[in-house]
């Protein structure tokens, strides 16, 4: 079969790092080609080069038999390459139709937009590939899976024959993943070529025709899924065995550290987001909260941290109601928080690491004396220990946080929270967007926390992580805890059913 895309010796250097180091990639026409690798392996850079977002320093690209050099994505689009980004690029307050035609509007005479033609075209595309969306829905009302379909249609609408999907499954629950895979197979049947980036190995094995593994900016191997196991792939990816998020023997005690009773709260617009949440976490226990994003987990975390008032019900720490306690008082009382969005909620990007270490502890020793005077030397010393203990790779504690890679930033955040004297640790998506090595380190720290007698509340979209680490699992759906499950019995598939409301089981069993 002819090659749709052929990349040879692609090299891309950034100051201090080589993101791609002579990468070769051969994608046959009409196949689904998976690219696997750890975070930071250079997959995204490679795709950005192919999509014309960044120029390669060296190497050549051949698309449909012709050598090409792109200076912008527009040129890539013109020869039929489309990309669906991991973070959707949709305007929430426009309709599906408007989003799809945005930037390539079909026009009638006089420059007016031909909405009818566009609508017809979209419905046709939808029919051909099983990509069903209502063109007149507002994007803000759509579920994640639907938004993704809009992105795919957008790319097809521009006439793409080669589709690049950047971690398309990262935001989906298992049922939506199956839907996506059905769509991908239909696209393939219609003769499209799909390049997709993923690091969930069972998914890759299920859908891909060919798999290329990239590690540290180099092509390691190109394999066929029928010839390899998930284990083999993992070893190719990391160059050694893949860590797993399993906890060992139980450390759960019957001492209740934090307890919510019938807690309700609203979001900023006043709509009810927590409807009577009742739960408790014991000393030495990890409670996993599963749920599709937007079902009240974020509000629950904010309520625990004192950033969002309860409209009714209560949350108590060691039997003391925390009503009216501000965030600082809760932190001082021993609640630690690893936020879900580190750049937005966890870091002062332009500040040195030691001041970031102080963030959240700025009323406590050793960072301040008498709760007022900052002690830079003591703080630096503390940060040095955190950096050492949690293996944060940095030239010094005086560099600004933005200079660090995502994984190292996350290790710093986890480290600084864990280094404090805690009773409760709230970990929201603690391994989101970091590579396998850093992920394993974070898991290890959560296990340490549990063994040290902390009550840990773990919220994650990574179901394996939830099942592997938790002592107990609850599922949050539309602001309620709808199921309590034993992680040793439940599969990711079952969990997905509870998360989407397809299966129902009473809590508190």
């Amino acid at each position, binding site marked *: 079969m002819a090659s749709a895309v052929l990349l040879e010796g692609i090299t891309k250097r950034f100051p201090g790092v080589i993101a791609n180091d002579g990468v070769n990639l051969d994608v046959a026409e009409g196949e689904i080609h998976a690219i696997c690798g750890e975070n930071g392996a250079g997959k995204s850079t490679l795709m950005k080069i192919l999509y014309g977002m960044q120029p390669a320093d060296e190497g050549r690209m051949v698309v449909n038999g012709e050598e090409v050099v792109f200076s912008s994505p527009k040129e890539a689009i013109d020869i039929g390459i489309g990309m669906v980004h991991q973070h959707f690029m949709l305007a929430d307050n426009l309709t599906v139709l408007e989003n799809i035609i945005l930037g390539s509007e079909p026009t009638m005479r006089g420059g007016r937009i031909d909405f009818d033609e566009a609508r017809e075209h979209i419905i046709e595309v939808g029919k051909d590939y099983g990509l069903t969306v209502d063109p007149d829905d507002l994007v803000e009302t759509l579920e994640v899976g639907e938004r993704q379909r809009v992105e795919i249609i957008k790319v097809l609408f521009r006439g793409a024959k080669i589709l690049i999907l950047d971690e398309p499954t990262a935001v989906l629950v298992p049922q939506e993943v199956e839907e996506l895979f059905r769509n991908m197979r239909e696209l393939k049947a219609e003769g499209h070529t799909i390049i997709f980036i993923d690091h969930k190995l069972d998914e890759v094995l299920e859908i891909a025709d060919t798999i290329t593994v990239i590690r540290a900016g180099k092509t390691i191997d190109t394999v066929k899924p029928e010839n390899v196991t998930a284990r083999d792939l993992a070893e190719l990816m990391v160059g050694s065995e893949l860590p797993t998020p399993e906890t060992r023997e139980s450390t759960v005690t019957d001492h209740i550290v934090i307890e919510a009773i019938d807690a309700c709260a609203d979001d900023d617009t006043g709509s009810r987001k927590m409807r009577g949440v009742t739960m408790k976490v014991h000393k030495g226990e990890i409670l996993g909260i599963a749920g599709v994003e937007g079902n009240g987990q974020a509000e629950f975390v904010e309520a625990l941290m004192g950033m969002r008032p309860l409209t009714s019900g209560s949350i108590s720490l060691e039997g003391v109601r925390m009503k009216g306690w501000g*965030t600082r008082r809760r932190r001082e009382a021993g609640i630690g928080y690893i936020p879900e969005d580190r750049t937005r909620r966890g870091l*002062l990007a332009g500040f040195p690491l030691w001041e970031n270490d102080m963030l959240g502890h700025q009323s406590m020793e050793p960072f301040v004396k008498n709760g007022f005077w900052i002690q830079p030397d003591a703080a630096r010393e503390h940060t040095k220990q955190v950096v050492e203990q949690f293996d944060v790779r940095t*030239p010094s504690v005086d560099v600004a946080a933005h200079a660090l890679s995502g994984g190292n930033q996350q290790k710093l955040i986890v480290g600084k929270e864990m280094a404090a004297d805690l009773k409760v640790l709230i970990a929201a998506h603690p391994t989101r967007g970091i590579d396998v090595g850093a992920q394993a380190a974070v898991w290890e720290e959560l296990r340490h926390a549990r063994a040290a007698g902390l009550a840990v509340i773990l919220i994650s979209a990574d179901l394996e992580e939830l099942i592997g680490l938790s002592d107990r699992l609850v599922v949050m759906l539309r602001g309620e805890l709808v199921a309590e499950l034993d992680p040793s019995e439940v599969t990711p598939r079952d969990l997905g059913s509870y998360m989407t409301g397809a299966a129902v089981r009473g809590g508190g069993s």
Partner: protein
Amino acid sequence: MRRKLFYALAAPLAAVGVAVVISSIVLLFAGANPLDAYQNMWEFGTRLETLIATLNRATPLYLSGVAVAIGFRMNLFNIGVEGQYILAAIVAAKVGAEINLPPVLHVTVIIATAMAVGAFWAGIAGYLKVTRNVHEVISTIMLNAIAVSGVVSYLLGVWDVPDESLDTALPAIPESGWMPPLNNIVELFTQEIKRVELWGFLLVAVAVGVLYHFLINRTRIGFDLRASGENPTAAQVSGTDPKRMIMAAMLLGGAVAGLVGLPELLGDSHAYNLRFTRNLGFNGIAVALLGRNNPIGIAIGAFVIGWLDRASGVLEVRGDAPREIVAIMTGVIILAAVVAYAVVERKRRAEEASAAAAATASAKEEQEAWRAEQKQVGDGEGGGS
């Protein structure tokens, strides 16, 4: 360490360089010889008397710059220093004239009054932002207009003592409420100073600068303030109450703004009158930008702008050029400084990022090597068994 110094100095020096080039072009267009003009300015500007006058101008500019910088540190754009200081000056002048206290106490009361009025006026903008989410730029601009044309005119009308000079003026503060000049101290090191007095409020400005440094960099509230400015969400997650921080920044900035009119009031005019210097609040924004909110940087900025202002008079006297040329120069310096800071900052960031990346990369190599070693050990055992 040397690098750090280079980065700190590169931008302002580049800015002044660019400003000199552009000003020269403007001077040429105005029909003047730039070299002559600069030489005249330098000769006049390096006289002891001009330097004293420069310090007198730089003192209120410095206070104004610090007042603005406190807001800047947490992303609040307090444009209201103008209204805050004028209102504070007139109320302080009235209070100072009405009371009669022993010397040090009298001055202290005047200073406290001015700070309280400034804080109150800025606090209105803070309150509106916290409770009604009114952007501080809008509210402080409005409050400037209300203060300068509304309240001040009204108060002058009510309190005015008509005197024979046709000048609207408030009664003067008695001598116990004056601040003595520092000429004696300066003259220990220099020749006799003629015709000008170095205002004593310079010492207060220095103290404010020191306090500002410690407050911002060495105290929790300063850290909370800076953190809120850098990333409000993260600051909130860390336990900082964003509304309290907004109020704190506005009140602190307003209190310092209240001091801006006092160097002149306590050191020279001793009464509020219509010749009272205006626009110090707006110039403070430029000074804060030039000084990058840094206590020493603001001092340098205040001195540069103060010097240009004082030394420029000679251009007109000697017939080189209209003194407005200095307004152009000041504007160019500020624009060039803002651009140069951005360029230097980007370079510094890139360098830091590559240093961090290098640290990670070398660690990765180590890791790879370790993995390979482990593998060998494993293989060896496998072979042996």
